[in-house]
């Protein structure tokens, strides 16, 4: 008995390993994608360092004699605190032209009632508004304070203007949202074990492949062969996941929760779900293998997209508006479980996700079983 198990196991393993291109893409693709993500996002955290905004200034008589001139010059000085890169023009038409050509983000004209002109609403424009607002407001504050009590000129109150930190951020999310992208990548890689699920089913079904026909007439029990094939597929994919995990944590330095055992558990169950999903698709649909693979890829991509892989935040919107969709999306469940390990101190959410996947596995397996049950073919 054991030797038969072993025989089938080794054979299936050989089949997978010999299919060099599948192997390459199962192992290499997640690593390539992880590297790409890392490259693309590596700078987001550093782009908190903001670059100065190009501001146009209509250098008319009113401006030259205004109070704000000194302020603008101060914040335009090169150095760490530079806010503006000023371009001085002599009249409003020139400023409009520069604005239209996108050489400046907005311009300031103290002579008109409309102080600031911009072309769009965005981060740079907001900075202009905020800085100019602050100038007028803080000027006002200083005047108020001096008028209230002349002693305030000397007692250091004026130094407090624009100086002071009042908020203390106690959220422990140090790495930003970036980790979620990598978690979705793990979720997607778990689904890849479905490819072996598809081929496993194809290989035992007489009406789907010649190999299937041969296996159907062999004395070995079809169910046994299927289970062993699924097992080998699962094992190979799990190894690929382990490699990905070590790459992410060891080399790229992505943060995960601290409980490694639970992380491995969710990855294993995720893999299992992928295998079941693959065999489910394969047993349900009577199509050529190429088409099944195409459909499976489409489904996996959709699941990944809905888990927030390409666009930040989609998973939250779905959780809020269509929670059922979040519950049947295995990529999302794996991502959510990993994130809850990272973010929460308690494990409630994590176990909820594990049970969720368990239910999905059971449902998919039952349906696959019903589709693949003992088939009788005519003996000719």
């Amino acid at each position, binding site marked *: 008995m054991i030797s038969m198990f072993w025989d089938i196991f080794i054979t299936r393993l050989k089949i997978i390993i010999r299919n060099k291109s599948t192997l390459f*893409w199962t192992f290499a693709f997640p690593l390539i994608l992880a590297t*790409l993500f890392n490259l693309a996002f590596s700078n987001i955290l550093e782009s908190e360092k903001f670059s100065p905004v190009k501001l146009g200034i209509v250098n008319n008589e009113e401006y030259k004699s205004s109070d704000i001139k000194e302020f603008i010059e101060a914040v335009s000085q090169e150095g760490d605190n530079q806010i503006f890169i000023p371009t001085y023009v002599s009249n409003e038409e020139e400023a409009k032209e520069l604005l239209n050509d*996108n050489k400046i983000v907005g311009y300031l004209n103290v002579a008109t009632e409309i102080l600031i*002109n911009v072309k769009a609403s965005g981060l740079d*424009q907001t900075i202009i508004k905020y800085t100019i607002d602050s100038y007028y407001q803080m000027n006002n504050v200083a005047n108020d304070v001096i008028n209230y009590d002349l002693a305030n000129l000397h007692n250091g109150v004026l130094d407090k203007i624009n100086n002071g930190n009042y908020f203390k951020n106690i959220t422990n999310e140090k790495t930003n949202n970036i980790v979620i992208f990598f978690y979705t990548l793990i979720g997607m890689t778990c689904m890849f074990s479905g490819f072996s699920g598809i081929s496993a089913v194809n290989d035992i079904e007489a009406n789907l492949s010649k190999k299937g026909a041969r296996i159907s007439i062999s004395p070995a029990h079809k169910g046994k062969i299927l289970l062993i094939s699924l097992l080998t597929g699962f094992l190979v994919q799990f190894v690929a996941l382990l490699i990905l995990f070590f790459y992410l944590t060891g080399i790229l330095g992505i943060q995960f929760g601290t409980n490694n055992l639970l992380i491995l558990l969710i990855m294993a169950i995720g893999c299992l779900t992928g295998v079941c999903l693959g065999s489910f698709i394969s047993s349900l649909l009577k199509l050529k293998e190429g088409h099944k*693979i195409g459909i499976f890829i489409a489904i996996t991509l959709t699941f990944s997209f809905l888990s927030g892989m390409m666009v930040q*935040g989609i998973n939250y919107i779905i959780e809020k508006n269509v929670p059922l969709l979040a519950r049947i999306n295995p990529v999302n469940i794996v991502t959510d479980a990993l994130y809850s390990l990272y973010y929460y101190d308690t494990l409630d959410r994590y176990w909820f996700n594990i049970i969720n996947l368990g239910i999905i596995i059971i449902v998919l397996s039952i349906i696959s079983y019903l589709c693949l049950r003992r088939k009788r073919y005519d003996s000719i």
Partner: protein
Amino acid sequence: MIVFKNYLKVLKKNLGMFIGFTVLFIGMSLLYVNLGNDPVAEFTSSKPYVSIVNRDKESSLIDHFIEYTEKNAEIIELDDNETVLKDAIFYREVSFIMIIPEGFNDAIKNKELLEIETMSVPDSSSVYLEMLLEKYLNIVDVYANSGMTETEIISNINNVMKKEAFIVIDSEVNVSEFDNVAFFYRFSNYVILYICVYLVGFLMSTFNNSKIKRRNLVSGTSYLKINMELFLGNLVFALSMWLLYVVVSIILFGNIMFTINGLLLILNSLIFTIMSLSIGFMIGSFVRNKEAINGLSNVIALGFSFLCGAFVPQAFLGSNIVNMSKTLPSYYYITNVDIINNLTNYTINNLKPIFINMGILVIYTIGFFLITNIISRLTLKKEN
């Protein structure tokens, strides 16, 4: 035109899958446009969701602070419970929480401002709000230290906050309205690349299956003619995909697609589609395995998209990444989308970079075709 007809036959046979993929990607694009737009800090944008937890007693100053916050945000009531607060942040129900500590009011009477603990969502749409609130607290700090009483502080703040610079958004093409269109076309970098590389590659690998290829070669039709007809078939396919995508954008965004900016975007995407087609053609001619084609198309589509600024805007990518991505054709496509997005003055100087980038895309296309021809000729020789 037999080869061409044959190509269409193969296409028809696989039509289900192609339609499926197309619908899928257009669906993704629609979702992306509707949900992915999260402006980081815009003074005309929608208000972020915020919660204020007050652990001190009620006071007119705190009330005033809450009122001021309400002018710039939507306030959500949350219980003062760590799990509740953490959950609210986790599920993005609020982007910012402030916890006013006990004794806050008394401290102000002693000219001191206690630290307010905050929790925030990292990607935050509440960055601007935080800046405004810190400015408010700074003003309270200064006033408190100048000797004012609570009532005086409140009335003075009211006066100060009225002093806002008058700002106007002035443009014929509303650039912000066009942002959505640009978003859609940036995402199309992924869609067009994936569809062209995967599906064209898929179709071509059918024809390049060596048995079929040998039968074709032995036939009376010249090799060049076969290649040309295959290319024509691919062109028909790619152009219909492109047309569909453009039609969807017209339905979504309406007349804005017929402005100069819109038309430039359409032209830009046409050139890009043909370029992607050349990549798909190239891949299909020397990769046989269907799974390998799938893997390659994913790597190319996702890779080009991430590195060249389709998902994460170019402004946020590191400078060395941007330099590296200049070797990829998508860089020029996306740069064009960005330029067209902000274009309001249609002078030659402003249009020149757009056409130069389009020219570069054409050069890439020619390059890929040449490579395909050279390699297929080499493999032919080898097989002979």
